[in-house]
């Protein structure tokens, strides 16, 4: 083997290995993000109890704002990183939980509930979002712990075979396409809702501006 061949091998390895490492790091990070998402969502009663003890409005506002920002940002980042489950090549070649796309769809549904209803005021909406998050987490954790991360356990090999994307490619791709269709429907519904809401609020503003009498210029008094 010539030095050029070794250089080519190292370059290719860095490119391919780097990309695989990035994918596997994202996959390894998603359980941590799912756990954070769940904990921050389920921890709301505790955050509210702490909030009540603040003597000043400023402290309470800072506390609540930090909680909301962190909770919703983690939710959004988890969904964004979960997009990896909608890449057919990665689903077919990498070992991913087969129900990962469904879990990501559940995450989007929880986000949609948050966008459509006032989850922090409406207890029913909060419960619906909780159900979506818990369902999504279960769909993610089950195959992740007992299939992807349990290849060394012979008695779990059957389960692993069924629930790992690259050993059950046909089912994995079917689940992925169905979930992607679900994501498209939810995203489309959110888009239409946003447009209707924007049209309504902007039309109302324009109408109120037109009905107001024009303000008169203040008369300039010459001393």
């Amino acid at each position, binding site marked *: *083997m010539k030095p050029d*061949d*070794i250089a*080519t*091998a*190292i370059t*290719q*390895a*860095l490119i*391919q*290995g*780097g990309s*695989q*490492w990035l994918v*596997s*790091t994202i996959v*390894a990070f998603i*359980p*941590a993000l799912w*756990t*954070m998402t*769940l*904990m*921050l*969502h*389920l*921890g*709301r*009663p*505790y955050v*509210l*109890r*702490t909030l*009540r*003890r*603040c*003597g*000043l409005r*400023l*402290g309470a506002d*800072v*506390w609540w704002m*930090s909680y909301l920002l962190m909770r919703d940002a983690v939710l959004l980042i988890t969904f964004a990183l979960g997009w990896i489950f909608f890449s057919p090549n990665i689903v077919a070649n990498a070992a991913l939980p087969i129900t990962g796309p469904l879990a990501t769809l559940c995450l989007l549904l929880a986000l949609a509930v948050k966008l459509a209803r006032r*989850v*922090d005021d409406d*207890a*029913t909406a*909060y*419960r619906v979002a*909780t*159900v979506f998050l*818990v369902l999504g987490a279960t769909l993610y954790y089950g195959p992740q*712990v007992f299939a992807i*991360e*349990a*290849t*060394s*356990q012979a008695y*779990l090999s059957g389960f692993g075979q069924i629930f790992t994307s690259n050993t059950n490619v046909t089912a994995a791709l079917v689940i992925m396409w169905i979930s992607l269709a679900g994501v498209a429907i939810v995203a489309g519904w959110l888009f239409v809702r946003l447009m209707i809401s924007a049209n309504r609020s902007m039309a109302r503003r324009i109408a109120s501006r037109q009905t107001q009498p024009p303000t008169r210029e203040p008369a300039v008094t010459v001393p």
Partner: protein
Amino acid sequence: MSVQDLTNAIISGINAGGEQFLEGTLAAALPIIWLAILGLHLGRPYILDMIDRFTLRLGADLLWLVYIALRDLLIVSGVVMSFMFFFPDVVTTDELPLTGALAAAALFGVLLVKLMGDPDTNLRDFQLVSGLLALGAALYFIPYVVGVQGNAITVGTMATISSFLVTNSNPNWAVGIGYVATALFAIMGAVATVYVLRTGGRAEVEETTSTRKGA
């Protein structure tokens, strides 16, 4: 050896090395996280004493909120970082403390008590949280110090105990303990979910008993 063979060898080296580096970094950071959690929990009287000295309500509020945020976020981070103890492949490959998964379950128990109780005002809840933290710390630090960090210098019976306390030299126990901790997590997670569904995200469970008129 062809160029493709060399490429594949380097790729698997990068992936395996990268994964082990990530897990090794998490394992090395966990004792620091545990110590910080214990320090902040045990430092509560000091913080309360300092709050009493504030002449401005705003400063006292901010100190208390920063303390609580730091303390609780560290507990959440500890639970999140301990997730690797539930993965059978990781515990059978890496040198980790044998009862690390149970320590993570104890930490999750602390979060559950904080969610359903009020350890900052209720003494019973505070004692429960302190007990769970002490138990979790013991379950983490004893196998960590005696097993993971001490297996190279121990001899005789101590060497046997030391190797028993490390996951990759005792894989059957490690995987079994991992399953027990996973079951505990699932049960506690279900309890937390039911509680939150009952409260609807409010600070307390809604009162279902109606007060009698004219009482």
